[in-house]
């Protein structure tokens, strides 16, 4: 082992740990904390530090919302379209794993392409767009500043959606960059990056020209994500410079950071905004939220190589990622303290607000997904779960049960305020919730249990490989049932969305309430 690499490795972890220690010290001694003055600028002279019982923290943001409404609406509409299409491909791919002779006649419908279409359409078409829509709704509100350059995101939305469609076509016809999470050809990625600029520029401009000095915790996550994702996307897609195993480490550095430094900040930031917003009470601790954010940045950014444990990559880089994966306990606990405590003390709100049900459930799944991920990265556990469907279950716990479900809640909260009318069929919202929660439970437990059994079978040389395939079949069938329920939920979601779009303008905006 070259000395320089050993040194770098030590340096990396020491830097992370020292930074964390400094943060804890600084927070404990109130070196960085929200000053009374800051709070006053945000919340008005009287508000800071007191429970919000008297309406001190109330602001009329309708003027601000009106500016962001159009791009947000367009992005949400497009995102829901891709959600439905992407889910259908997901169900198709799932069915093909236990009906292998179904639809084998043409190349675009083969499993390897349908699965890829599912992944790319839901990541780039659904999650990224609905997340950006959420950012465009929330950032102007927490900054008390109307969205700057509101025309750009519309242009961005057009380019983005055309490119996602073109990317889907490329994958269906076999034109692909060939790496997981990076399949869309790099020529098309240039357009995605351009559209990304059109999305990010107005939001950064809004942040820089904001009316309030203080940045609410959601703002950190969103601003961080807008720095991280473009960097990740461009470096990983640079054509021609990555090859062999180096390409594999780049691939997983990217793929895991898409989850960790893009989808997670979108989901956590959105939950951080809507949980206190809907309940009407502030989050518990500024210090804890700092720990959560910087812990995420420091540790999540280096976990990617746990996808290559036991593979042809240097031992030290694998160990580095394993250690950082486990360190993720810290920021996750921090976020859990801030979010779950707020929800647990106000369970009444879950009865009153359907969007909060989605968001609180999603936030809880963030905790579970991250704990599971940390445990899964341990070599002793990974040796069983790696290469099995367990990983697929875990990926969906993070990207679906956490981020997607938070986004469902976000859309249900935003739409009535954006359009000034209520959802036509509140019953469908409840049906949507239970379909995706139950469907996901079936999906997740089937793949997790089946995956462990599959992994144990593969580790036992006295059992032929065939056994690991055969024993998975009932679990894969259960996954198709769960996935179909989730997709049905998405279709109800889309119907309800169309319903509120087409309804005649009526009553003023009201929160969606359960009963």
């Amino acid at each position, binding site marked *: 082992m070259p000395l320089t690499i050993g040194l770098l490795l030590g340096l990396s972890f020491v830097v992370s740990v020292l930074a964390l220690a400094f943060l804890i010290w600084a927070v404990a001694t109130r070196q960085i904390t929200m000053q009374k003055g800051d709070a006053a600028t945000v919340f008005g002279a009287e508000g800071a530090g007191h429970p919000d019982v008297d309406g001190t923290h109330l602001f009329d943001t309708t003027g601000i919302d009106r500016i962001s409404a159009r791009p947000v609406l367009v992005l949400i509409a497009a995102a829901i379209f891709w959600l439905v299409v992407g889910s259908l491909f997901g169900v198709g791919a799932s069915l093909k794993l236990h009906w292998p002779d179904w639809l084998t006649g043409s190349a675009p419908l083969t499993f390897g392409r349908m699965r890829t279409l599912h992944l790319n359409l839901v990541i780039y078409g659904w999650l990224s767009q609905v997340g950006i829509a959420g950012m465009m709704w929330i950032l102007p509100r927490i900054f008390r500043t109307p969205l700057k350059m509101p025309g750009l995101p519309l242009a961005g939305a057009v380019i983005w959606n055309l490119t996602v469609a073109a990317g889907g076509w490329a994958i269906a016809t076999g034109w692909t960059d060939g790496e997981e999470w990076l399949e869309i050809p790099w020529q098309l990625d240039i357009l995605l990056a351009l559209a990304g600029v059109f999305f990010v520029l107005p939001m950064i401009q809004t942040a820089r020209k904001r009316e309030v000095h203080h940045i609410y915790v959601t703002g950190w996550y969103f601003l961080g994500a807008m720095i991280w994702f473009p960097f990740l996307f461009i470096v990983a897609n640079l054509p021609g410079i990555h090859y062999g195993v180096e390409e594999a480490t780049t691939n997983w550095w990217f793929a895991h950071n898409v989850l960790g430094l893009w989808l997670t900040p979108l989901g956590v930031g959105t939950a951080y905004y809507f949980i206190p917003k809907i309940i009407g009470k502030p989050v518990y601790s500024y210090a804890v939220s700092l720990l959560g954010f910087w812990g995420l940045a420091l540790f999540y950014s280096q976990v990617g190589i746990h996808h290559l444990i036991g593979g042809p990559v240097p031992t030290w880089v694998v160990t580095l990622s394993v250690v950082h994966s486990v360190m993720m306990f810290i920021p996750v606990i921090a976020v859990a*303290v801030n979010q779950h405590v707020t929800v647990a003390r106000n369970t009444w709100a879950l009865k009153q607000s359907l969007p909060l049900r989605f968001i609180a459930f999603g936030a809880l799944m963030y905790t579970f997904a991250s704990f599971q991920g940390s445990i899964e990265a341990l070599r002793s556990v990974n040796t069983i779960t790696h290469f099995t469907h367990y990983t697929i279950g875990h990926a969906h716990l993070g990207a679906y049960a956490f981020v997607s479900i938070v986004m469902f809640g976000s859309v249900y909260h935003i739409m009535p305020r954006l359009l000034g009318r209520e959802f036509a069929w509140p019953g469908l919202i409840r049906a949507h919730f239970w379909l995706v929660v139950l469907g996901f439970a079936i999906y997740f437990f089937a793949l997790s249990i089946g995956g462990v059994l599959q992994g144990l079978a593969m580790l036992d040389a006295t059992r032929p490989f065939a056994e690991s395939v055969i024993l998975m079949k009932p679990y894969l069938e259960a996954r198709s049932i769960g996935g179909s329920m989730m997709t049905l939920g998405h279709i109800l979601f889309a119907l309800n969305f169309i319903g509120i779009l087409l309804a005649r303008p009526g009553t003023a905006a009201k929160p969606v309430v359960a009963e």
Partner: protein
Amino acid sequence: MTRKPTSSDHIVDEKFEPWERNGRMPLPVVWVAVALAIWGTGTLLTTSGGAPETAVEAAVQQDRPVDAPDSGAALFAANCATCHQPNGSGVRLAVPPLRGSEFPAQGPELVANVLLRGIDGPIRVDGHDYDGHMPSFSAAFGDAEIAELASYVAATFGDRDDGVDTATVADLRARAVGQGTWSGGEALAAAYPGLPPQPAFSSASVTPVSADVSALIFEGRDDVWACASCHGDLGQGVENTPRLSGLSADYIAKQLRDFQTGTRANEHMSFVAKGLTEADIAGLGAYYAGLSVPSTAAPILGGDLKRGETLALVGDWDLGVPACFSCHGPSGFGVAPNFPALSAQQAPYTASQLAAWAGGHRANSPLSLMDQISKGLSTDDRRAVADYLASLPAVPAGSTGAVAKEGDGHDL
């Protein structure tokens, strides 16, 4: 959780925007962070440095001859005594003795020549005829080792103390190129006139294959893939596709019939065996039994060769495992019809079959002998013994020219 709703427990404040209170950091969070930081540093220190001897390195090292230039006695004990026995007495009717044999008495040069080229043909030693199947050690040993070993054998069993030096062995090796195996005692007697009369070598010992069987082996049929397309042009096997050359005809035929009836389960082979006639089976058995091909196997599973040698030679009675060679013959060269040759078999194949017996997925051995034995072996033991057997030279020796020819082909 179920407390009475108060006046603030309802959603009215549509215009409320969230903010953070200055709650204290809960102490348990700090403890968890400190504990994880300590664990992380410890893990990085212990697991990121280079492991002293890694599995890959171990596997790489095992590709080379295990015993570096040792004394002749040590080389003999490790490589010759498994067949010729430690005291050189041989095995009655199977392995010619060295003690009392006329051959070592001809001098160390003859011994070196036999070591380099091997013997494949009838041989008469001390008045008894044997079916000579001496492997060639030309690839396994360097000149120095051959010189040590030949000198030791000639001195111990032939009373010839003159010895042979490395240069002479190098010269013999150069002259042996392209000569192939000694065709029994007759060829040796021609080169060394001091030897007693030897039985005649019959070059027609290999049964000719019919055109049908030949086409089956090399071209396949409408519903059968060519045998050679997986097992190699010379039946040498690769990875978990077994070496067939040198297996007894009866053994091959029994396996093919077992594949036909489903007594032995293997998807590839039952696909093939379904399309075979009795005549095909007999022809294939005869063809592969008659092939002499040098080993292409190597210990590639990272197994412990010393442990493998112990299992093969003496077994492990604590596990209820007898020595492999007690049934499969000295040096594992096979005892027809029921005990196939093990030497030079591809290590992944041997290991996978042991694993299949242990897991109950292969159950066609006579008297279920292998089921019990395999269940006693651990994963490491299976790899160890498979690797050790793969490190043994092939019997019969075959000619090095054959490998060169097959190396040029596409279907290795």
